[in-house]
């Protein structure tokens, strides 16, 4: 894989070890992720993919017993430093979860939420941002006539695209997605995949997925984890056709996991 210059690195983990209490779940992980690419994290359940993803926006901070060694660098800054305001960090880094989790508010309010908590009151700006974000997440045409309806009345696939719109409204530069399509039907999944493809132009995307074909279809690079180790990280093409490690080969071909 090509070496990245400091400027090209959007996200980086350096000698990262993560523990929950006494249990070590990530072991000396090193990775550098290039801007405007899609990176897939694959590996068997429990190997630490979600934990790793969540270190990039410090969502592990609330987990009891969480401890880490090593550094996480976002846009050249160590985000676990004291002076970093975690709320500011998370505005730059959107997150989409496994299960769609829209707020129990209207569709409009869901997308406007991020702006409102920042104290933005300008109605016109809010309306424009909501429209733009819903268009970006390919949901606008389906909901434009009933923005006042409860977000919970949408289908699962629509809810997930709403959650993406909600994240995009904050104009982040990074999107973290933790198995965003695993709870969805094939049609909704296809829509989300198309969307990720589109979004790549403007965002750096990291996606955890269980679905090998999905990783193959949408990602530029793939990282394979096994029991807390980053076994192999390379271009997706390479990982899927000619991986270096036998363990990767076995996983890809479905011999375990």
């Amino acid at each position: 894989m090509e070496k990245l210059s400091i400027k090209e690195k959007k996200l980086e983990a350096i000698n990262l070890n993560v523990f929950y209490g006494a249990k070590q779940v990530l072991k000396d992980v090193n990775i550098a992720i290039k801007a405007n690419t899609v990176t897939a994290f694959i590996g068997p359940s429990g190997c630490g993919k979600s934990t790793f993803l969540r270190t990039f926006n410090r969502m592990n901070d609330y987990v009891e017993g969480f401890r880490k060694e090593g550094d996480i660098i976002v846009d050249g800054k160590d985000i676990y430093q004291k002076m970093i305001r975690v709320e500011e960090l998370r505005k730059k880094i959107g997150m989409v979860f496994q299960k769609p989790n829209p707020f129990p508010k209207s569709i409009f309010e869901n997308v406007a939420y991020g702006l409102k908590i920042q104290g933005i009151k300008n109605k016109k700006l809010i309306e424009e941002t909501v429209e733009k974000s819903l268009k970006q997440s390919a949901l606008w045409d389906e909901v434009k006539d009933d923005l006042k309806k409860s977000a919970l009345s949408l289908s699962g696939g629509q809810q997930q695209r709403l959650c993406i719109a909600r994240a995009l409204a904050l104009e982040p530069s990074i999107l973290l997605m933790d198995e965003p399509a695993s709870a969805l039907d094939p049609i909704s999944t296809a829509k989300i995949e198309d969307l990720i493809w589109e979004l790549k132009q403007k965002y750096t995307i990291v996606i955890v997925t269980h679905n090998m074909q999905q990783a193959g279809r949408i990602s530029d690079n793939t990282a394979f984890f096994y029991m807390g180790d980053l076994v192999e990280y390379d271009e997706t093409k390479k990982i899927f056709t000619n991986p270096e490690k036998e363990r990767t080969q076995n996983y890809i071909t479905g011999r375990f996991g």
Partner: protein
Amino acid sequence: MKRVLMICAIITVLTTVGIVWVLFSESYTFFQHVSIWDFLTDTEWSPLSTNKHFGILPLLSGTLLVTAISMSIAVPMGIIIAIYLSEYAPKKFRYYIKPLLEILASIPTVVYGFFALTVVTPFLQNYIPNLAGFNALSAGLVMGIMIIPMISSLSEDALYAVPKSLREGAYGMGSTRLQTSFNVILPAASSGIIVSIILAFARAVGETMIVTVAAGNMANLTADPRETVATITAFIVNMSSGDVQQDSIEYQTIFAAGVTLFVFTFILNSVSFYIKKRFQEKYD
């Protein structure tokens, strides 16, 4: 066994029906002497004086005044405590403080009444001139404290039951803890919180001992919390414990007041039921 349960159920239903029947039949006799119109619009309540008046408004206003004061304490305090326990407090603290709060609710209400009369009123009199010895303010404040755990405990359950995924969604967008609590968790738990407020309201309207001891027994159409008032419940207690002759019109006022309380809580419950349904439609 099935029989026993059946009989228990029947006894309960019969008792309820019996109470309602007595209530309405006794008040029926009452309303043959006093027109419903006078009852609802007369601004004086003086069943024991020589110049008798039977207007329920002073008792109703007394009830509402004390209830409003208590709710203005209990609702904000109860919700703030619930948010603190659910969203901020360490697990251990929550584990110990919740039962402790519930003890507040198990103190006999007569104790609260005397606390209001002998501690709160004299204390407040230092700051509020013209505060009567028996007054709505002290009774309402103390009743508010008594009701806090009803609201905080049920609201906390509702807040705690909000799925973790919603909290993560909010934090993931850069919300602070405070923003998450008030903008996401609180609305998501609103139907449960409204239920807790309704139950507390009903409890406040029906509460008897505190007002009997500390608010006085003077039917008084007023909105001034410094004054002595009588609530419907306090009137019923006082009238039943005095020696009035059975089947006299004075005796029947007890039932007329009781019916009012009954209808009042019934309307309240219906309204709140309606509100609850609407909120539920909105949120889940």
